[in-house]
């Protein structure tokens, strides 16, 4: 041993810190919305465009609110997990289709009339669900993304857990993985449904 080995000790301490750091998530910033009532909205449904849905319609139920879009590549990764979830668990999963047309880079929104955007959005969303399976009890369409702003969406997909009183209890940013589902979401749902 010699006096130079202290450097290795310092390095080992740094590595330990980084290893611990890996298991923490800096994005787990407590969302300001957690613990607050879910922001209100009234949006048309995908299956029946003449009908709308508001969070107050879900009062008395624990439900999941999942933000998705057909252009979102990470949603494809998440989707099978949600489909599996909807088969096994009897908890309403509501989809929020976020900027279906505007969010996709391929369209020139300056030139598109509103009714054409609407038609295209419904068509794209329906096709996508037909292709990949539909885990949602129903999906609402947020064409211009205003509801997304109210919910603080900053990346699709995102998932919210909302309790019987209509209060947001958890927000997850990024794809839901089987681990997150098993370790965080399911225990929370079980507790809220007690």
């Amino acid at each position: 041993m010699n006096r130079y080995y202290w450097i290795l000790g310092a390095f080992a301490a740094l590595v330990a810190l980084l290893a611990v750091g890996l298991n923490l998530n800096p994005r787990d910033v407590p969302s300001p919305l957690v613990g607050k009532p879910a922001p209100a909205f009234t949006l048309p449904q995908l299956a029946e465009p003449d009908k709308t849905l508001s969070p107050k319609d879900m009062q008395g139920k624990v439900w999941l609110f999942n933000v998705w879009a057909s252009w979102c590549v990470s949603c494809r990764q998440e989707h099978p997990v949600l489909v599996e979830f909807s088969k096994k668990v009897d908890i309403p999963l509501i989809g929020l289709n976020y900027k279906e047309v505007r969010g996709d880079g391929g369209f020139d929104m300056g030139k598109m009339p509103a009714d054409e955007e609407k038609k295209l959005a419904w068509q794209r969303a329906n096709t996508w669900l037909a292709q990949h399976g539909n885990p949602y009890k129903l999906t609402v369409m947020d064409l211009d993304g205003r509801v997304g702003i109210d919910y603080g969406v900053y990346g699709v997909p995102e998932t919210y857990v909302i309790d019987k009183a209509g209060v947001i209890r958890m927000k997850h940013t990024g794809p839901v993985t089987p681990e997150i589902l098993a370790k965080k979401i399911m225990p929370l749902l079980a507790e809220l449904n007690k």
Partner: protein
Amino acid sequence: MIPELGHFALILAALVSLILGTLPMIGAHTNRQAWIAVARPAATALAMLVTFSFACLTQAFVANDFSVVYVAQHSNSLLPIEYRVAGVWGGHEGSLLLWILMLTWWAFLVAVFSRELPDTMVARVLGTLGLVGFGFLLFILLTSNPFERLLPGAAEGRDLNPLLQDPGLVIHPPLLYMGYVGFSVAYAFAIAALLSGKLDAAWARWSRPWTMAAWIFLTLGIAMGSWWAYYELGWGGWWFWDPVENASFMPWLIGTALIHSLAVTEKRGSFKNWTVLLAISAFSLSLLGTFLVRSGVLTSVHAFATDPRRGIFILIFLVAVIGASLTLFAARAPKVGLGGRFGLVSRESLLLTNNVLLVVACATVLLGTLYPLLIDALGAGKISVGPPYFNAVFVPVMSPILFLMGIAPFARWKDASVADIAKAVKWALAIGVIVAIALPLVYGQWYALTALGLFFAAWIVATAILNFIERVQHTRAGRSFLATAFSQPRSFFGMHLAHIGIAVFVIGVTMVSSYQDEKDVKLAPGQSVDVAGYHFTFNGVKAVEGPNYVAAQGDFDLAVDGKFVRKMNPEKRNYHSSAMPMTEASIDAGLLRDVYVSLGEPIDRDKPEGEWAVRVYYKPFVDWIWGGCVLMSLGGLIAMLDRRYRVKARAATQLPAGTQQA
């Protein structure tokens, strides 16, 4: 088909790098010439394979091949061609590919420009680079394959992050990575020297131009990034102490210490252990920076989508590379001699002080960067460490460095006299004090920190000029002053130019932080605002259309003393692909000041023809910040081209006394 070829080339590259990392190393150890001779061709093959692979990914971008996941996520058919090419490094996978591309190019350059080095040395240097490259190639292949397919392919890509759609993206990452990765060469030389036991002046001489080259790229890369942030983000700032900025700044600080320490090791044979440790640290910090950015342990504007597997892989890689290097260092360091002795006041002692201060500066940045992580790990909450901390600790650490910078060139090697130095610099001190007292008063208000900054700037420039004159006078021997001046070695010119670059940088930072002015106002068309004597009249906004965005473009008239100067047209852009509106500031740049307008939001979302939130800035001397960085790099370049690096390196046996024998 082409993406598969690129993927295949990457797999082959991993195999070649493994060969490069093992055969020549073993050959150098057991003295097998045939194995040693593998090094150069293997390094060449590695560079070609990775270049080919990189070209394949570029082709997928240019051809809008959205069946490649990475392309689908970072490009779009409406994206202009230059951003499709630069989009290759716009995300995690591609930027790693750029990283490894740079590494293999550096290795290739070493293979080409190392004719006068002993073959065993070359084998060890290239072998070390091969091992590092192998680790990174494995990382790419196992966790971050850029060639992964999306089946069925997407009809359209998601588009590149609008923040990145700027010429800055084309230049900043390649420069920065050249610098980051370039320290791997200095590192490989240090490891090779430790392995062979020959830590001598020849080793220092070989390392110097390579280290300098990496340092130049890093300096330019950081400056470019800072300038980009300044004009693109629209916040008017040029440095945010963001974790990723810090990750590039830490290797810069250590690299700066390293180029000075190498000078001592080359000239005097001293500080050998210290120099080796710095070389290892500079590259280790580059790797640590990669870890911090890529693992997602810290949040930052630069963070890409994170995947825990990646973090674990880089951490293991970090432990392997840095752990092995430090163990090797700890085992070998006690046997390395101390080299030439030197007095309490001497050029060596001054450079050592400067080195220690730079390392302390780096340690404070590291602490500030990792502190939020530490607090989080201890379960004590989430905090962030911001500019107030860094500004508070940085000024006291940098001040003595700036002061010593003026003195050290006057100090003789081995033993210098304080009285002689004081005599030589007394006029510089006087000039510095006068400038510090007078200039802030001329400019407006006198602040202590402003005076301090201007004192150092004047002091550095004055000492550089005095030192230059003194040296020319001493070496004249009857020739004319001018002829002697031009016959000074390039490294001497380079040193002073780089130091003056620091002075210019200090002036920029001091002036902009003392006298900048900004106003946040609400303007309706026809209204105007004044800042620091500049008169802005708002004429309203109009809608304009870009290739992949629509924008609200503001129309401002800039006037000084009632005279119209120019139109300014800041924009608020809405890219089709993004929910976030982007701000494009309009800047009128000048030698002595920038004025800067950026458009906020309309006060009423549905009435864009009405009032808008507008921000105007006056930024005195802000461009000197980047000008100083360019001068530093230029100084480095001139020093690197010094004649003596092109003269055949002397054999190790002719070294000054006191150098250690293995």
